[in-house]
């Protein structure tokens, strides 16, 4: 009896930490996948799995900051495609150096973020509508500009290539530069949110914007800065992806906006603002990526793949929400 009580108290203590829920889900699902298909935990599969993490992961980090401030951005997938497309179109057709073209790409992305931020704060339209519209605008612009054709991204400056998509091989595990960027950004944003003045303002903006303004915080400026930063991250992730794949496609990143929101929310960030956890998002990114990987490994029918991914994400979200409610009471 007392033993059970103690055990229960330990479980309660663990579940009270937001990030523990996705972590438990990650361990449980990994174990399940491993039992069905031992290849799941093979070094080769792990390194393949992590190779694709930076693309979505870097965007998910930015999305976490936005969600914490009570807004979100549906235009990230379009910016993810547009910025590298613009960069490499300039390189390939105008012939200016990649370094300079990258700056143009980043600047264009940040301008998109600025417009998003201004429309949300100054015109007062919900971020859902603003960024839905911006998604169509940017996606359409990319397709129009490129007439639907991808741009080659190979043969660029070798230093930039290495910085974006270089690899380090340790034994059987290959680590990609993108993964290091993701880890670096995650560490920085974690501390920014938890330990910096700006992080406190982000939390307050999303938690109770009225109170934050009453305390003299310029919540509009906080929101605008986050939108600009989000677009920058999306363009950076897009550049890494396009360089890795070898072409900048105008249709790249389709659906990334919802997938990254799912990653943040599964990790414990609130859809309604005021609560955000970078550690949770990192776990959420790995969780959803491993679900996609594991589903294929255990061999579900090819065309039913998305169905299974959807079911598992729903289950993960439900467990998260139920435990959340249990903790609150």
């Amino acid at each position, binding site marked *: 009896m007392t033993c059970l009580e103690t055990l229960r108290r330990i479980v309660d203590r663990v579940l009270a930490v937001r990030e523990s829920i996705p972590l438990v889900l990650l361990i449980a699902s990994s174990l399940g996948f491993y039992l069905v298909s031992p*290849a799941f935990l093979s070094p*080769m599969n792990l390194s393949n799995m992590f190779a694709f993490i930076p693309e979505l992961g870097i965007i998910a980090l930015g999305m976490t900051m936005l969600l914490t401030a009570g807004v979100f951005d549906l235009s990230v997938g379009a910016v993810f495609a547009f910025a590298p497309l613009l960069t490499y179109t300039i390189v390939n057709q105008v012939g200016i150096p990649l370094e300079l073209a990258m700056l143009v790409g980043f600047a264009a992305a940040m301008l998109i973020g600025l417009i998003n931020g201004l429309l949300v704060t100054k015109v007062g339209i919900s971020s859902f509508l603003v960024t839905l519209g911006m998604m169509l605008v940017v996606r359409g612009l990319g397709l129009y500009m490129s*007439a639907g*054709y991808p*741009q080659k991204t190979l043969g660029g400056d070798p230093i930039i290539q290495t910085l974006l998509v270089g690899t380090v091989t340790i034994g059987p595990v290959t680590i990609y530069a993108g993964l290091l960027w993701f880890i670096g950004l995650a560490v920085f944003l974690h501390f920014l949110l938890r330990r910096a003045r700006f992080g406190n303002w982000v939390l307050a903006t999303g938690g109770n914007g009225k109170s934050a303004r009453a305390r003299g915080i310029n919540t509009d400026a906080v929101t605008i800065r986050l939108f600009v930063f989000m677009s920058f991250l999306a363009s950076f992730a897009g550049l890494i*992806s396009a360089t890795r*794949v070898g072409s900048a496609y105008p249709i790249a990143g389709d659906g990334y906006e919802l997938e990254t929101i799912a990653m943040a929310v599964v990790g414990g960030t609130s859809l309604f603002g005021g609560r955000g956890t970078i550690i949770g998002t990192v776990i959420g990114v790995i969780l959803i990526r491993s679900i*996609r990987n594991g589903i294929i490994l255990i061999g579900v*029918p090819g065309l039913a793949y998305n169905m299974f991914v959807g079911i598992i994400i729903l289950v993960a979200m439900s467990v998260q929400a139920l435990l959340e409610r249990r903790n609150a009471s």
Partner: protein
Amino acid sequence: MNLGIASVGRRSLTLALAAGLTISVAACGSTSSPAPTTAASAAAGAAATQAATAGKTFYWLSHGSASDQFWVTAVAGADAASKDLGVSVKESFANGDVAAQKEAFNSAIAAGAAGIATTSPGAGALNDEVAAAHKAGIPVVFFNSDDPASGRDAYVGANLQGAGVQWAQYLVDNKLVKAGDFVWLPVEAPGETYQVDETKGIASVFDPLGIKYEVFNASGDPAGSLSNMTDYMTANKDKVKAIIGLGDMVTSNVQQVFDKVGIKPGQIPVVGWGNTKATAQSVAAGYVNAATWQYPDSQGYMPIVLLARASAGSLIGYDISTMALYDKSNVDKYLALLK
């Protein structure tokens, strides 16, 4: 435009879908004419046509863009036809703008064209224009992307179902697969016409032989498709006896996937679309056994020949299939085109 398969090197399937240029070909244009007319025989006919058509003006309209390598090659083919036949060919690109293409078509009718060659920017998009041209006695040939329901006189381009038959037959004829084997069919956009038609062709060969196959949703996202295919092969490299890439992007991913999973070139036979440089290089390196090329220059040249025949009074109720498999033995010729 065959939903984007039609590109040399750089065009992905789903781009075109996203651009809203999806063509749902009601039925594949040339299912009733499986034997492709060879370029040589058509060219021979061209010489005879020359006298009757000299000085006439033909219009050649593409939904594509003049900056794309595929269309650069195609338009050069149309120019060659103009020179060879001694006719005038007016070319225009709509850059994906359906309205612009319709306008160009109508101007061609108004200008009293001797014949109009066009791509289909979408199912039914040119129905009225084709009817108007026929009313004015102008023959119409579709190329690159078909729309048989429009009532066009003929089609020049790849035949999707035929491509499926060709791939499956290649694997069977070369004894690369046998009854009970499993063939993996990755695709960018499952459910799209090109996947359905190609799978239909594959089924017509594999089903009677008891060869199993499965379509796999690799997704149209470039990074995502690479990762999904890698995941799949990690788990199933022993199960998969052959791979047919139903689109250009998935076929061009094969080499990277094999390298990541540790499959040696040739260990698992691969066939599929080969309009990209990456795929042609994979053929040269032995990762892909054979790939399908769809002759962009002929898609420029042949429609003009057919139209010239028609305007000279011949009947042209047949389609020309511009596709063939290439392999390691002749890949150099294709690589040279993909510079």
